[in-house]
């Protein structure tokens, strides 16, 4: 096969550009404008739904169920007890089991307070020191009394109380998490 001659010389290319500019004049602006509008409409038509698509799960609030954690009768008075909080949560399209341990304290009057198991400073797990009768966080030395008040350490606020109720002798708790490090209790 004979080599094929390229139809367009370099000279011709330059000419084409100049010719286009001169011949079109005002129409050139119009074509540019329509191109811009078409591109923007497509961009907008995609950006809005795609953005919503990605952020929608972040905006959904999960239902936090009441979970039975044990019978009230079994709780010793003024002796904090750690109770299992088991629930099934929907994680997107997967159902997962959530297992948390909350601190329940039966006060002398019979009222029950349930504390979140996380220290309000940076979210470490703390424990009950039975001999000194204090809650102690091992990480940075925060100390709380049996009512959750801060006695020492960097903790910015008292222990977080979780919503709880008693029905037919059974203790129900709703598990929530709060932002660590703030003086105010802010739910996540």
């Amino acid at each position, binding site marked *: *096969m004979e080599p*094929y001659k*390229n*139809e*367009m010389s370099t000279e*011709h*290319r330059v*000419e*084409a*550009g100049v*010719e*286009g500019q001169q011949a*079109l004049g005002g129409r*050139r602006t119009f*074509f*540019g404008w*329509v*191109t811009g509008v*078409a*591109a923007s*409409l*497509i961009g907008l*038509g*995609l950006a809005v*739904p*795609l953005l*919503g*698509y*990605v952020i*929608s*799960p972040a905006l959904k609030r999960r239902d936090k169920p009441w979970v039975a954690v044990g019978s009230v009768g079994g709780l010793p008075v003024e002796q904090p007890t750690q109770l299992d909080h088991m629930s099934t949560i929907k994680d*997107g*399209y*997967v159902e997962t089991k959530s297992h948390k341990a909350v601190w329940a304290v039966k006060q002398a009057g019979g009222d029950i307070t349930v504390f979140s198991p996380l220290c309000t400073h940076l979210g470490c797990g703390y424990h009950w020191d039975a001999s000194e009768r204090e809650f102690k966080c091992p990480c940075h030395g925060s100390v709380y009394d049996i009512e959750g008040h801060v006695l020492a350490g960097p903790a910015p606020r008292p222990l977080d109380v979780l919503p709880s109720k008693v029905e037919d002798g059974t203790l129900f708790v709703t598990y929530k998490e709060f932002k660590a490090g703030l003086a105010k209790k802010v739910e996540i």
Partner: protein
Amino acid sequence: MASKLYTWLDSRLNLKPIQKTLLDEPIPGGASWIYVFGSATLFLFALQAVTGMFLAVYYAPTPDHAYDSIQFIESEVTFGAFVRGLHHWGASGMVVAIGLHMLQTFLYGAYKPPREAMWMAGVVLFLIVMAFAFTGYLLPWDQTAYWATHIGINMVGTVPLIGEFLMKVMRGGDTLGALTLSRFFAVHVLFLPALLMGLIAVHLFILRRVGPAGPWTDQRAELRHEAFYPRQVYMDAVVMLGVFLVIAALAIWLPFPLADKANPSDTSFVPVPEWYFLFYYELLKYVHGPLEPLATWVLPAIVILVMLFWPFIDRNPARNPVRRPVAIGGGMVFLFVVFALLGISLRDLYAVSRADPSVMRGKAVYAQFGCAACHRIHGEGGAVGPDLSFVGDSRPDRDWHVRHHKDPASVSPGSIMPKFPLTEQQLRDLASYMVSLKKEA
């Protein structure tokens, strides 16, 4: 502001020559609406790439979760059904756009020297798009996906000597399962896009080296030489917007539902391939027994080879269709056969009303929860609630039924109907049954 930024960047990066190369490409014979199909195909590829990336945000390529994750996208993610719809209809749109692009190239004789390599790269691009369609079809892991892919892979099995081996490689073993799904996923989202982008680059590189073919008569091509920008860019942009609006409208008004979750034990399911594979599906009905390999692989292999080497088979130097009676005649016969097969297949598909398995299951749910105690259908059942004999005519909206059965008071305030503990699947089945209760049925 924008022009200032451009000047600033240009003074450092020397952008002007690039802009010239990209926008001042001369179009022989001037810009034309007939040249938009390539850009429309490229636009649809970009749309598929973007929507595909976003689908991957939620999709899980395992048999345990694939179906649930798509259902999650469909029913719980904001704009989820729309994004999936764009991807689904975008695939169809891409096949249409490529078809028109190839048709125009063929009609204009634009595959002739010096553009043989561009045509060949184009044919490979077309095959890659078909491979995209085939691998993507399995991903929702619903009944249609499972059985259509099952059949597709079995066809490969009829290739002599290596068929069995190829089949096992495609499936990742002896059965269509977890390994098949993950390899189809990897091929669909990683291997094929990389291949496709490389070949698009080759295709466009050749285009820029040899220039567009232009009109088929040299006299007309010499009439004017117009630059690519602004008029061809404007035409391309208008067509892209049009294509986007059509795909978006289809995604909104013709949702692409999920069938039931893939069930390898349910052999009663009749799978139907996508419309662009239908002509081939129809062809297989006419060829049986020892001749079957002829239809499943001999003929397709010949068609693909002829397509690929077409510029070397058609040695007629003329580009004008009038002076190419054999090529144009042959092309018309080929198109006629394909569209006749497609037509017959579509007619058969829509003539036979198939029993929808979800309607049957919905009927079972109706019986199981004792709905007949209050409702009457064709004279059977109590008269406490409304007669449901023709409820599909008065309430054709499936979603209404789903909401109603989930919580009757939410859509019918004051309703005395109690809530029933139905699963999502049962709700959908029951809705299918309710909607099917029509006068003509």
